[in-house]
């Protein structure tokens, strides 16, 4: 394979494939058949239909909530001054954080020559795209008049409206849309050789035509592969800074403001770490059921799960460092507002959410120090769920507590979400899963040709 050649040209022998990232006994044909059959030949499984149906029901909830929002305005949400950012921003940050694992796996792990990225990159990238789509909905809905969203863009117009470029909210528009675009291109470029495989193997005429169009004329010539490898590597390089930039800009949404608990310099790195944390948690939440339902234990092995767990532990510890440093500096600063906010979070009206976040994000992840637990699949599934919850709580605590108690006690108001807040959140979860179920059914969820490369390397290693 050409990436292999590339490495040899650089004077590096191809790394032998550890048996742990691919079960032994696979050939080019078995790998191709096993992955493509899920799309092309196997019967649509019942649990897929049930899952899709349930997710569609949740989408109905989302549509209802949006329709009601259009009619009534943002007053249906719990946001009331001073808490002008409620669930919408919490959910936005949560979803966009989840969307970080895909690009990290695809781009950074590719550049770091990590073999274990191969079988999880495709669906992690898909997960990223759908999560970004969910995230993007919230700021739009939160505007109250989503049809005017284009006012955020700098374009010449007769209204004398121009975005305020000193506002991080405007940076967000660019950061998120760039991220969404590059992730989509990256995903699609990586998909092309596999879509061509599906085109060649498809039995039905319609499938042939659709996959044929999507493959953009891919024939697998060596020139195609050469261009492909170059493009993919360049895209990986381009996508890498985006992994950091998006959540950095999201953290600026808070830090550029002044409320106690928001304005702190550690937010950018610790938001990025938190995003990767939640992203990998979601990867595990999805990968564990998928490998069980579709019998993909040969491809998504214990090694993948264990490495993901290690990344969870590492990023979880960085997040913990962030919490600790924030608390210490709140005291050290001698700023009474900072210190009040820190102690109030732990003891005030939102202490339940606060301690839940500590329990989920700081305490629970410590179990992953133990190799036995990192290899315990049901345990990993549970812990990934807990971390997803914890990261949502973190954003809730950050957004709500700082706003509901700012500098003037007479302006203090508590916040509570309404049923429409919850409906929108649950609805986007449904939307995410609808997209994901369709992806599982219609596209190869594991990169077929990259798995074939692994097979080739594994055989090379044996010789």
């Amino acid at each position, binding site marked *: 394979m050409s990436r292999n050649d590339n490495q040899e040209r650089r004077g590096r022998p191809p790394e032998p494939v550890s048996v742990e990232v691919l079960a032994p006994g696979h050939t080019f044909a078995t790998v191709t058949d096993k992955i493509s059959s899920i799309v092309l030949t196997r019967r649509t499984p019942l649990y897929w239909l049930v899952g899709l149906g349930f997710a569609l029901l949740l989408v109905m909830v989302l549509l209802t909530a949006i329709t009601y929002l259009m009619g009534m305005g943002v007053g249906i949400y719990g946001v009331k001054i001073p808490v002008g950012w409620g669930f919408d921003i919490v959910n936005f940050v949560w979803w966009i954080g989840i969307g970080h694992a895909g690009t990290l796996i695809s781009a950074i792990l590719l550049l770091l020559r990590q073999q274990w990225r191969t079988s999880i990159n495709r669906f992690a990238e898909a997960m990223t795209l759908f999560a970004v789509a969910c995230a993007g909905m919230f700021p739009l809905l939160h505007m109250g008049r989503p049809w005017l969203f284009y006012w955020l863009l700098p374009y010449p117009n007769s209204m004398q409206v121009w975005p305020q470029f000193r506002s991080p909210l405007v940076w967000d528009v660019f950061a998120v849309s760039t991220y969404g675009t590059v992730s989509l291109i990256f995903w699609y470029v990586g998909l092309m050789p596999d879509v061509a495989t599906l085109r060649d193997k498809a039995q039905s005429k319609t499938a042939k035509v659709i996959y044929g169009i999507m493959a953009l004329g891919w024939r697998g010539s060596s020139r195609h592969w050469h261009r492909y490898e170059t493009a993919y590597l360049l895209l990986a390089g381009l996508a890498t800074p985006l992994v950091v930039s998006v959540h950095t800009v999201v953290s600026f949404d808070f*830090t550029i403001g*002044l409320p106690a608990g928001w304005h702190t*310099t550690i937010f950018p790195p610790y938001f990025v770490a938190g995003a990767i944390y939640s992203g990998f948690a979601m990867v595990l939440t999805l990968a564990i059921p998928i490998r069980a339902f579709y019998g993909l234990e040969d491809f998504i092995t214990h090694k993948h799960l264990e490495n993901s767990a290690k990344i969870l532990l590492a990023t979880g510890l960085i997040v913990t460092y962030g919490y600790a440093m924030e608390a210490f500096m709140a005291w050290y600063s*001698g*700023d009474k507002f900072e210190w009040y906010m820190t102690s109030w979070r732990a003891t005030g009206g939102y202490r339940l959410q606060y301690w839940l976040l500590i329990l989920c994000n700081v305490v629970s992840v410590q179990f992953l120090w133990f190799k036995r637990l990192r290899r315990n699949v049901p345990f990993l599934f549970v812990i990934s769920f807990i971390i997803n919850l914890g990261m949502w709580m973190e954003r809730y605590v950050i957004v709500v507590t700082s706003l509901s108690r700012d500098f003037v006690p007479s302006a203090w108001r508590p916040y509570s979400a309404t049923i429409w807040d919850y409906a929108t959140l649950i609805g986007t979860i449904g939307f995410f899963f609808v997209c994901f179920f369709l992806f599982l059914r219609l596209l190869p969820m594991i990169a077929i040709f990259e798995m074939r490369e692994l097979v080739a390397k594994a055989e090379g290693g044996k010789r």
Partner: protein
Amino acid sequence: MNDETQVIPVDLDRLQSRALLVGIAGLAACAIAAVSNHQQFLRSYLAGFLFWLAIAVGCLALLMLYHLVGGSWGFVIQRILEAGSRTLPLLALLLVPILFGLRVLYIWARPEDVAANTILQHKNIYLNIPFFLARMVLYFGLWVALAMLYNRWSRQHDGSGDGSWIDRAERLAAPGLIIYAVTISFAAVDLIMSLEPVWFSTAFGLMVICGQGVATFSFVIIMLSLASGRKPLAGFVTEQHFHDLGNLLLAFVMLWTYIAFAQFLIIWAGNLPDEISWYVTRLSGGWRIWALALLIFHFVVPFFLLLMRDIKKKAPRIVGVAGLLLVAHWAEMVWLVEPSFPPDRFHIHWMDVAAPIGIGGIWISLFVSQLKKRALLPLRHPKLAGVWEPAEET
């Protein structure tokens, strides 16, 4: 595999003795000047101390990072990192002049100033001389202990070839790195941030950690190139090792810039008196040019140079970039320390240069003597199985 372009012939023995001479001369000059200008000596000395501390502790941290994640980049520099970590007791010794000058350097250590300032009274529970001394003992105790363990295990592995010593090193790596991150963050608060005790920034510890990564990788690249003419490194070190190290250096350059810029942007946008005052002094007058030079030579120039594969692969070129970054790192230490002191305008003293050179001479002399004590590669490591016979050890 031998690649002649990687070798910069240097006589390590001569380097050792000359460095010692330069070190003694530099420190002696500073000591004489210290009689008349005690405060200036201490602040120059602090900046120089921080510079070399970054490399010594950085060696320990990279050693643990290597044992945690592995990789051939760390294999070739393992002995350099170990020798660097063995210099930590010297740094504990070099800290003593600072400890005797706490009242001169730190406003919180002067009771009359504390009595006049409510914020200092608030911080007095943390920023007071006994607790400060206790923390320093704790930090250096932990660092020296970690360094001793790693060096002992490595020596035992050299002796017996028993892989269980490597396992131990790998098991301690993650907890060791946590200890490093926490202690360095607080040491940064104690030694640097508390020079201006009103100022605070939660990202400061991370910025210092990333700066240490830049300094240590730069130093290691230079040392690897100097030592690569010797056996057993000669013939083993290839372009690819320099390429990998150059990439890691690039990564740390970017991380440092990222944290430093994010910290600046947030404080600039907030524009709160307690926070912005730190930058106001550091960004006015000559310090503004100094800061601009930091931006250019700690980021822009090395960033673009390190993007180029040809530069990373050829030892003389990457050594040049690494040298530039070490100078930039020194400039950063001066920029962090000096503006905390009067006069408010730009000022630089000859001791700002002499003190780091003096400390560095002694440090490098010790480092080289430590480096020479052991084979430059862990010869019994499974990676080298069959490549060298133990008899070939020199």
